[in-house]
């Protein structure tokens, strides 16, 4: 695993998130569920809680966008770059963006597994960089796996616990 340059992290024990926009490939409730599940994967390992807000500015602003979407990292259409997220901090910090030009799925089959991509991007939102372990969720390329079996690896857990420590109940 690796940490982002200068090891930024959230210093509050509660981090807020807001879903700003959706993909038409999945029902909105499914996107909500997957986002919550992806965040839960991380919060199960560290003493950090996530709270959803529906208005105003959240720490982690989440959305689907296409092409140039105002952050100097334009998306490139289908394939290649699928998503990106910013390290913890004010403003864009922590925000996670997904390319609306991809075909997003909640399971097997053609398309990009949104649970995998979201969990990966929220790793960046929390301060993790890319891992060179091909099995890690934080590996930079995305594979298509079975969401039933999808989980953080030891490498991901060691990385996030280096930043935030372990939960008391672990």
């Amino acid at each position, binding site marked *: 695993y690796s940490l982002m340059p200068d090891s930024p992290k959230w210093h509050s024990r509660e981090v807020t998130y807001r879903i700003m926009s959706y993909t038409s490939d999945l029902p909105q409730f499914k996107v909500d569920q997957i986002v919550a599940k992806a965040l839960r994967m991380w919060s199960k390992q560290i003493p950090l809680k996530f709270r959803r807000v529906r208005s105003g500015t959240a720490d982690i602003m989440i959305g689907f966008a296409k092409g140039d979407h105002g952050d100097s990292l334009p*998306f490139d259409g289908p394939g290649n*770059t699928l998503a990106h*997220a910013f390290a913890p901090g004010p403003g864009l910090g922590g925000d996670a963006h997904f390319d609306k030009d991809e075909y997003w799925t909640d399971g097997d089959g053609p398309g*990009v597994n949104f649970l995998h991509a979201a969990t990966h991007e929220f790793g*960046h939102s929390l301060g993790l*960089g890319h891992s*060179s372990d091909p099995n890690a969720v934080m590996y930079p*390329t995305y594979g298509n796996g079975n969401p039933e079996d999808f989980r953080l690896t030891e490498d991901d857990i060691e990385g996030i616990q280096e930043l935030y420590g372990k939960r008391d109940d672990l």
Partner: protein
Amino acid sequence: LPLSREAADVSALQWEQAQDYLRKFYIHDSKAKEANSLVVKLKEMQKFFGLPVTGKLSPQIVELMQKPRCGVPDVAK
């Protein structure tokens, strides 16, 4: 510092894509020319992905560069 396309056995388009990939995902703050050379960046990429560190573009690396991925740099100093 140019990579050697002739030695890489890749198409002109793949060649351009490889250079864009290295500029996008292997970023240095240093103004030193060496740190910003594409050969240095290619070696970093090969090291990151556990490939033989040759500094030469190959079809295997081009294939890796074409995989769907996250837009966050692998190396940003």
